[in-house]
């Protein structure tokens, strides 16, 4: 069950490279302030940054929703954009459709999705070509990890 107090919603603008990274930085600050384990915070920061950047690089507009659940953290990044025709292919390290101007800015190595997979405990992607993409990540906090191990 989600408690409203433990949820945050942010908007992400496509192609706005100046503000890119702000939303994931906010997520990071909140978790740091709440005293989450530093390594956990770092994993969340990296995963949410990659998801945010994919909206900035590849889509038109999106939102990031994150929620602190009793045993885990949930991050949902939704966008309106071209969608991903072949998710399995997109997941492969090094696969990227980023145009040259985005590559010039240091993105488009095709590492984002695999980076998310590495850092999140669960990664679900649902995408409709021509409409948009939903990326959901679940990160179990270190305490619950120990508990379940």
């Amino acid at each position, binding site marked *: 069950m989600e*408690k409203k*107090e*433990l949820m945050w919603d942010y908007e992400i603008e496509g192609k706005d490279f100046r503000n*890119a*990274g702000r939303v*994931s*930085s906010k997520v*990071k600050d*909140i978790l*740091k*302030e*709440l*005293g989450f384990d*530093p*390594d956990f*915070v*770092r994993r969340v*920061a*990296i995963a949410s*940054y*990659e998801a945010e950047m994919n909206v900035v690089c590849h889509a038109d507009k999106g939102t990031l929703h994150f929620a*602190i659940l009793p045993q885990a953290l949930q991050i949902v990044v939704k966008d309106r954009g071209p969608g991903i025709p072949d998710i399995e292919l997109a997941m492969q390290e090094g696969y990227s459709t980023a145009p040259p101007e985005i590559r010039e800015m*240091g993105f488009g190595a095709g590492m984002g999705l695999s*980076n998310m997979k590495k850092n999140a405990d669960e990664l679900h992607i649902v995408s409709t070509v021509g409409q948009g993409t939903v990326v959901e990540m679940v990160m179990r906090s270190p305490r619950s990890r120990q508990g379940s191990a």
Partner: protein
Amino acid sequence: MKRSYGIITIDEDKCQGCVNCMMSCRTEAIRIFEGKARIVTNRCIYCGKCFRDCPEHAITSRTHGLEDLKNFKYTIVIPSSTIYSQLPGEREPNRILCALKALGFDHVYEEAIGAEEASIATQEYLKGYQGPYPLISSLCPAIIRLIQIRFPHFVDQINPIDLPAEIVAKDIRKAKAKELGITQEELGIFYLVPCPAKMVAVTKTETKERSFIDGTISIADIYGELMAALREVREEEGLQKASSAGIGWAVKGGEIRELEPRRWLRGDKESIVVDGIKNAIKVLDEIENGKLRNIEFIEARACPEGCVGGALTVADRYVSRGRIRKLMLSHGSESVVDRAEVVKRFKEGYYFFEKGLKPKPFAVRLDTDPLKAVEKMKVRDEIHVSLPGLDCGACGTPNCRAFADDVVQGKAEITDCIFKWREGVKDLAQEVMQWAEKRPHSLPKRGR
């Protein structure tokens, strides 16, 4: 009255509560309380920036002075390489060391020799280093503390090679006591420092049980005497031995300069030199966010231009940097340090911290109950939005966000904000007016 915060002291008779220090502190460690500056020590990184920005010179730091020399049978001074940049004109480094010795020390050993050793040790360490990246320089203790407090998970990425001055002290301590036939307690080793951060790093060392150094002395404290002694130097003895490689550590980039040639750094990644706390925070933040990638090594210095900009130096930092650079050009790279010997000792573990650094995260911790903490956080954000956002400092906190933090934690009242206070007064005045309109029904109505 003087109030102490570890090695830092604020002279409250001089402090005017002007907010300059509070606004300049990059870690938001200062508050103004009842008209005087106070330091929140678990936020302070001992950079000394506030010393320079206080117009009243009310903030200082000190651990030892020349009067402490008399407690030892034999005394040695290890001057920070910044000393070569501090005296006007083209003073010969060797003359400066002779003058320093004349202040009452029995011997002088340069920190720069330790820097040369540290440099070789770091090169060796890099050979086997596999990550995580970036590796972060350990030479600025203020930056180390910033990482412990604000970027705790980077603590393991700090280069575990000891401070150059500690290396020198370790090199000479035992041998010198033996040579002189005195106990190690009778031997006093003092480190002449450019900053409070190094004072803390030595006197409250966290990387070993006990420092090899007995005390620290500020360059600024002995500056006048050193100038006078310099005029008196007649005969010079050869004290200056370090090469450009070690002296260069006084300025930003001096460390990386020795790592770049011969591919000690891999070169397929970037390495960064960053100076100033604000810039260092920005770079570390961007690395943490995943925005800056592929960085192999960071040399970060709290002071602009490097240690020549330290809070306990005297000369202008830009002039000082120029002087060091000139010395680097005029001094050869030929070194008295025996590379093979350093490599051998490195393999024996001689240069490493004895104890690992620990993270010291400073989470504001609004509440121990996470649910309540989040609630408070949201209230805090609402308060923040309701404030004028001028970051004027009149409330005694460095900015509106920090003020909202203090309010929600009960450390400040909303009316400490003069704008909120004025709103309150206005509301009150209106209420008073309404009361003034009212008349007892026993009296005739107005206007008659």
